[in-house]
């Protein structure tokens, strides 16, 4: 039995781990989300992990959402190719 088998507020840590994305993305029913809320309030490890998890997703979304502009040479060759068709 691992630490993840610990049950807090009627739900095991491993189940919380599995539902974390659905929880953050708002895909859970109200009752399911409330069970996770209760668990997170009482389980330090899941609360901490959930924080890091959502920070990482937010960083990905914010820092990398803008694609780097195309290299001017790549852009030029694309135009050259398009002018041939």
């Amino acid at each position, binding site marked *: 039995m691992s630490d993840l088998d610990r049950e807090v507020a009627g739900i095991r840590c491993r189940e919380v781990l599995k539902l974390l994305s659905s929880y953050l993305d708002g895909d859970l029913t109200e009752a399911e989300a409330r069970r996770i809320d209760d668990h997170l309030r009482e389980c330090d490890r*899941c609360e901490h*992990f959930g924080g*890091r998890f959502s920070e990482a*997703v937010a*960083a*990905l979304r914010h820092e990398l959402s803008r694609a780097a502009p195309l290299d001017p040479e*790549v852009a030029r060759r*694309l135009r050259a190719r398009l002018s041939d068709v």
Partner: protein
Amino acid sequence: MSEPDDRRLLLEASLGDRGAFERFVQRHEAAVFRLLRSSAADEADAEDALQEAFVAAWKGAGSYRGGASARGWILTIARNALRRSRRRRVGEPSTFEPLEELGLQAGWGRDDTLEGLARRQVLDRAMQMLGEEEREVLVLRELEDLPGEDVAEMLGITVAAMKSRLHRARLRFLAALREVTDE
């Protein structure tokens, strides 16, 4: 005057308006190249597919119906162009370790903070450590912010399967982030 939307640009392109198509290219080329670079074996393959994708879009502009987003439309064309070239990156084999295993790799149970989250270079390196399928779902869903239904359709999987892939990809990204910053 407001910017014409993609649907209008593609309609005009389908009637032979190269200026309209150029604006469409400008709007999407960086995103298309990013997706291709994340999946192609090398830079040259990504560039070939980039050109083929926009050639195909120019020829097929009239087939865009305006249902899904134009971004999703052109990314799908690009993905298919790369598939045809059959030179996709040989990714790390997709392993399916149990979710708990992934959670522990991602730092579940560790009482620490994450460094480097504001550094693009760190995030980029973590992305590079992922397998192709994981990187692809993160690019489409998190970076492009395409609707889940569109992403599932592009990947040829159900919405539920896409969500499960996304969850694993996020966990693996977090694990990779720790690996990069622990070095």
